[in-house]
């Protein structure tokens, strides 16, 4: 079980906590502040555009994951199942619906206001469509704006696809935002925000890529989910986000200078025994226990696909102040789950090689087809191409019924033994050469 001792807090963590507290405070006071509230999703979000209309975004999947971390999700999921949702479907949706049925109290204990606009800008998952159909019925009469993101079918973004998206933005999304907010679209303001986006994105890439150093100064999965928080959600395009990433980057540089390993809630990793690339989202209900298994084994996650669901910045994309709408289109199409399977495999293979990983591990999420369907094939491909041992565990995002600590621990222990063995063999081979 998780060690109850107090986790180490770096300055960047405190800053992020304050940012979140302010965000949810603003949301709880949206009415008093005269701000309109937009419900939208993380992958392929239009945060800068929303903020440029002085509206406040709400991301239901963030609420769901927070509910999971706060041990509320079991109850919420149960309530959603009581009204007819199947055991088999995405637990994020059920958790969110359950949260609404229970008064829509957010992670900070404050009430999240109902939406003024449902902005269905989503990427890489069909469940988002269903989720919004449900929300539309829970909030009848609230305007819905839809931005359809074409899939990277051929592994590229075509001009036609970009034009399609920009047209939707101009003719569907922006007019709805103008109508709801009562403000005119401000191109210059949006463009200015994108300067901040790009600055923060540069910093995030440096931070994530610091894990290429051996030993790595960061954990790019468990800690990575915190690092991506501000940029994947309500803060992209703000000065606050730039400040946060500047601070975080300073901390990481400091760690590099001192040769320190990643910070974890259990303390610093003193010896990096294994370097892993992980595919798939983490489990939230038992996040700390889950992380601790890796900590105990000296395993550091040096790269992960989950930290790319809100943008694959390390492959070069940046929001572009010169063409803000086009870059929103490219951003939405570029996120990890909108990449086709061959692209995903290429990216993961590249990670294994460039981050000098000892192994590749999949955490397969029971209720998330977007990630899970095809993962076993991804695993085979990586095993063949990168030649590293692959591992496979199963859990769920926010349904505690599907997190079996003993099972996961056993599997991981055998996997780490396999990695250990391989290291010994590789060393022996090196010595003979």
């Amino acid at each position, binding site marked *: 079980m998780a060690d109850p001792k107090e986790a180490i807090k770096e300055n960047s963590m405190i800053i992020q906590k304050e940012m979140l507290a302010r965000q949810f405070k603003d949301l709880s006071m949206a009415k008093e502040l005269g701000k309109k509230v937009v419900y939208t999703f993380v992958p392929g979000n239009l945060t800068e555009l929303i903020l440029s209309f002085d509206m406040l975004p709400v991301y239901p999947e963030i609420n769901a994951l927070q509910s999971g971390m706060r041990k509320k999700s079991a109850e919420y999921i149960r309530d959603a199942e009581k*009204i*007819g*949702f*199947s055991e*088999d*479907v*995405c637990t994020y*949706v059920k958790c969110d619906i359950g949260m609404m049925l229970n008064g829509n109290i957010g992670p900070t204990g404050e009430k999240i206001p109902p939406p003024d606009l449902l902005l*269905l800008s989503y990427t890489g*998952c*069909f*469940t988002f*469509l*269903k*989720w*919004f*159909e*449900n929300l*539309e*019925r829970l909030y009848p009469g609230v305007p*819905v704006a*839809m931005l*359809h993101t*074409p*899939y990277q*079918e051929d592994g590229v973004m075509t001009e*036609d696809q970009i034009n*399609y998206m920009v*047209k*939707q933005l101009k*003719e*569907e999304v922006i007019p709805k935002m103008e109508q709801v907010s009562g403000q005119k679209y401000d191109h210059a303001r949006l463009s200015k925000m994108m300067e901040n986006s790009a600055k923060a994105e540069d910093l995030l890439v440096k931070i994530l890529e610091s894990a290429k150093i051996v030993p790595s100064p960061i954990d790019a999965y468990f800690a990575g989910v915190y690092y991506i928080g501000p940029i994947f959600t309500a803060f992209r395009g703000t000065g606050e986000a730039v400040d946060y990433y500047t601070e975080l980057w300073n901390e990481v540089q400091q760690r590099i200078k001192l040769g320190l390993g990643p910070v974890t809630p259990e303390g610093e990793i003193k010896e990096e025994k294994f370097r892993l690339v992980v595919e798939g989202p983490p489990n939230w209900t038992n996040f700390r226990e889950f992380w601790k298994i890796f900590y105990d084994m000296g395993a550091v996650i040096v790269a992960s696909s989950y930290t790319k669901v809100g943008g694959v910045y390390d492959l070069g994309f940046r929001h572009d102040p010169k063409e803000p709408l086009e870059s929103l289109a490219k951003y939405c199409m570029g996120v990890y789950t909108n990449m*086709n*399977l*061959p692209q*995903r*495999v290429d990216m993961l293979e590249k990670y294994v090689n460039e981050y000098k990983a000892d192994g590749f591990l999949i955490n*397969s999420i*029971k*209720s998330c*087809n*977007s990630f*899970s*369907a*095809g*993962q*076993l*094939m991804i695993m085979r*491909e990586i095993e063949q191409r990168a030649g590293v041992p692959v591992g496979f565990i*199963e859990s769920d995002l926010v349904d505690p019924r599907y997190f079996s600590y003993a099972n996961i621990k056993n599997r991981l222990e055998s996997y780490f033994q396999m990695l250990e063995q391989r290291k010994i063999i590789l060393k022996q081979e090196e010595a003979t050469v």
Partner: protein
Amino acid sequence: MKSLDQIIAECEEIAFDLKFSRARKWKDEQDNRVIVGYLPTYVPREIIHAANGISVGIMGTGDRKQIIKGDAYYQSYICHLPRGVIEMALDNNLDAFDGFLFPAICDCIRNLSGMFKLSKKGKFQRYFDYPQNFSSSIGGKFYIQELEKVLEDIFNVNGVRVTAKALNHSIGLYNKNRHLIETIYTIRQSTPWRLSAVETYYILRAGQCMPVEDHNDILEQVVAHIQKERGEPMDNIRVVVSGSFCEQPPIGLIKSIELAGCYILDDDFMLGSRFIQGNITDDSEDPLHALSEAYLHQSTFSSAFYDVGNPKGKRLVELVRKRASDGIIFCAASFCDPALLDRPELQKEADAAGIPHINFQFHENTGQFKIIKEQAGTFSDSIKLWA
């Protein structure tokens, strides 16, 4: 004219021939013919026809094939359909196919398109995206671009450029096909005993694996047959089955529902064949535009499609009313996200309209139907009792 029993027997064979012999024979008869496989639910088959192709619905293996390799590609919590499809691909059942289309209905089918790409099955593997924007100048334009990509894929295989004339001709054939299918449903509505749901299923499913011209012949004969009396009316209730638009229920399940005293008057089993409602303009100078308009404005509803502004719950209730049915059987594949996520809302609409309903989940290879039969029987009895 063949007897109806003979037609049905032939259709059953064609529908479940996992070697797709009928389509292969057609392809072998002439050079430059192509077979394009498509996954559920809907693709505009007209464009494939016009490009000298036959479109074949890959509707899963049902209970006709043991799945061994497919299970190694999918976790236990993913629906059954794609594992059967992979099994077929690995067992060379699909080798005569030139290309594959994966309609944008769910993440499983989408990722399956990538698995086909990775394993280089066929000469092309295309994810066929539907616009979620329903204005002609935005979503319509996007849809036409999707159609053009498919035409280009086929051109790259057989060098056939599609003319407006050819496309209009194909649209005409499929208009006829849809019209005949709807005629069968209309006849069955008043006299469902003349053609059982299973028989109807064989006839429609066979149509996904044979040239449309041949299928039209068959449908014409079926219509002629069922205009005459056949079978015995039973004291059955009338139901609409909803939720089986992709992975198909086993035949035993459909039979069990009927044997339990339910006439199935409408369903979404072969939704692709019935997706466009009514005729598509077949004398346009721009037939791709006509197809696109039909998609945008003449599509039926399904859990696999986004519907804000035209909620499917209401449309399901309308369908039940149109078919003068007594109830709804929600019948979805286990782990089918689109169907199962819609279920609470659809049930709510049914409740609000006072329409009784029950709910089953299945795998395409489920072999036990005792419980389903009992439940459907109780459902039927309760409706009769309270009617």
